């Protein structure tokens, strides 16, 4: 990928990701509402919410927290850009993790106990989801011999066939990353938790919008991750992603929030069984395959 292409891809991601994710959030809210037998908001409601948040008064409990939030947004965008220009998968994962750490630090910066509890919950969620993300990078490497996203998506064979466990594992932690029940410990998009969610307690108007925006960038990046499994067949990929997202919404609407212990334990077990298991099988297959 040459430089012009890279810059174009980066710009496209920066501009299109929030639009796409916002629309997705709108669809999410309508489907959620229908599952709850409600009419639900209009499709563009997430955008209305975002613009409204940007217009709200800035009340700062602690300015440092805001700095960290910008870090969250910035590093999430960097992770996304790195991914969509076909860069190094490891850098993507680390930048994404760094972004989340900034978010946690932002919440820790305020003195409120709620904010601290929320930040601790978010850290636990990071601990639960990060191993699977790193493992998936290893899976891609073993399968394709490269950490470069560009190399991975330009391969002609369908990676889902050899990495089904990785895919399942990623879908599992996607529930954590998308903040869906039963794994919505630190924050969620449920009507009641909109105000109550711990980690964002001490942030106001525009900063909440920044968090939402960063979350949107993150969502598109994670869906991009899943896209890699189906890269040669774009239509199948779109269908699979839609199915995955629908399952996430369904899970959100049919589960209670579980304890953090449960989230951590189950996601690690799932990572170990599906992710690491897949890796081991793949490793032996590739060893056995090469003469």
């Amino acid at each position, binding site marked *: 990928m040459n430089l012009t292409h890279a810059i174009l891809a980066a710009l496209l991601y920066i501009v299109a990701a929030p639009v796409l994710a916002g629309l997705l959030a709108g669809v999410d809210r309508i489907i959620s509402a229908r599952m709850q*037998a409600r009419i639900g908001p209009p499709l563009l409601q997430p955008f209305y919410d975002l613009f409204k948040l940007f217009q709200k008064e800035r009340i700062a409990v602690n300015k440092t927290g805001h700095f960290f939030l910008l870090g969250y947004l910035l590093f999430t965008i960097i992770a996304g850009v790195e991914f969509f220009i076909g860069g190094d998968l490891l850098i993507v994962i680390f930048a994404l993790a760094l972004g989340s750490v900034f978010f946690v630090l932002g919440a820790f910066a305020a003195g409120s*106990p709620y904010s601290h509890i929320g930040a601790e919950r978010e850290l636990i969620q990071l601990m639960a989801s990060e191993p699977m993300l790193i493992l998936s990078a290893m899976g891609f490497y073993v399968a394709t011999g490269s950490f470069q996203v560009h190399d991975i998506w330009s391969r002609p064979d369908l990676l889902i066939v050899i990495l089904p466990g990785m895919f399942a594992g990623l879908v599992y932690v996607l529930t954590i990353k998308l903040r869906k*029940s039963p794994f*919505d410990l630190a924050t969620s998009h449920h009507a009641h938790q909109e*105000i*109550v969610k711990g980690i964002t307690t001490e942030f106001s108007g525009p900063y909440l919008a920044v968090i939402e925006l960063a979350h949107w960038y993150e969502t598109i990046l994670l869906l991009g991750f899943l896209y890699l499994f189906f890269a040669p067949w774009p239509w199948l990929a779109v269908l699979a992603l839609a199915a995955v997202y629908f399952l996430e919404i369904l899970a959100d609407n*049919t589960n*209670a*929030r*579980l304890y953090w212990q449960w989230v951590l334990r189950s996601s690690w077990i799932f990572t170990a069984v599906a992710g690491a298991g897949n890796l081991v099988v793949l490793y032996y297959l590739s060893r056995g395959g090469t003469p």
Partner: protein
Amino acid sequence: MANRTVIPFGPQHPVLPEPIHLDLVIEDEHVVEAIPSFGFIHRGLEKLAEKRDFTEFTFVAERICGICSYIHGMGYCQAIESVMGLEIPERAKWLRTMWAELSRMHSHMMWLGLLGDAFGFENLFMAFWRVREGLLDIIEETSGGRVIFGAAKVGGIRRDVPDDLLARIPAQLAKIEAEMRPITDVFRDDFSVRQRLCGVGVLSQKDAYDLGAVGPVLRGSGVAVDTRLEGYAAYDRVQVEPIVESDGDCWARAMVRIREVYQSFEILKQVLPNVPAGPVDMKVTGAPNGEFFARLEQPRGEVIYYVKGSGKKQLDRFRVRTPTFANIPPLLKMLQGCQLADVPVIVLTIDPCISCAER
């Protein structure tokens, strides 16, 4: 060593939409002690009784609480009637029973939804509230109000319900019952729900009794006390069995309420066809002179109305002991040793109505 922190819980923070403040002493995510504070919205309603005409005070009594409103009004009237020795008409007694049960059902349904919300199950919350709408429609059609019935009156009831309407209600109730089955099954069977409720906030049978718990909290811990058995209104002529669960945890309390809703359907099946014809109120002359403690079963538990009059239009003393008030000491017991994430759920399982606890 374990790190102790104090987490302030409520009332400004909307974790729990009730004006109670709990200082939670936390040791590694476990609650060691909970210290409540009240008095954020104390309204002095008991004092207000000393300046209102005793018949007019019915309106105030009905507004002690927004959810168990009807039984508050009815209990107040019952206390006054007992002091004055009034025997109200039969039709009024049966209609009171009907409304009391409708009120219990809608309160329990609301609570079940709120409990779902407390553990982050948004869909369950919406589902119960949706089904509850059907009950509110019946209430509105019969009494004119959706949550504040406005139907209580010293000496009977304020409005009659036409017989053709009474004949239509059973079909509506049957529809609601059918809609309810699948979602109450969720409470009973769903994996994630059971994870959050079973074994959480256990209150032993002895503690429940000794600490003066009432209503579903007491029955959830295996004590069969139900004030409806005392047979006020028309309860002496319908079949009422106390609903008892033995586990004493949050799940048991939820089960008690679910089964009570179904029990209310059964009670209404006995009540509706048996409402006798006749007048619904009687003329009340004079003023109460004497005292009486009336006990009724509210959705939240046993409630006490004390009325003392000395032959004047204004009462000397009116007191109501709401079930939430009696359930506070057991709540503090339940909270000890629970996880932080369980606090909203446990607080909710006493069905707190702090506003009505602070008359």
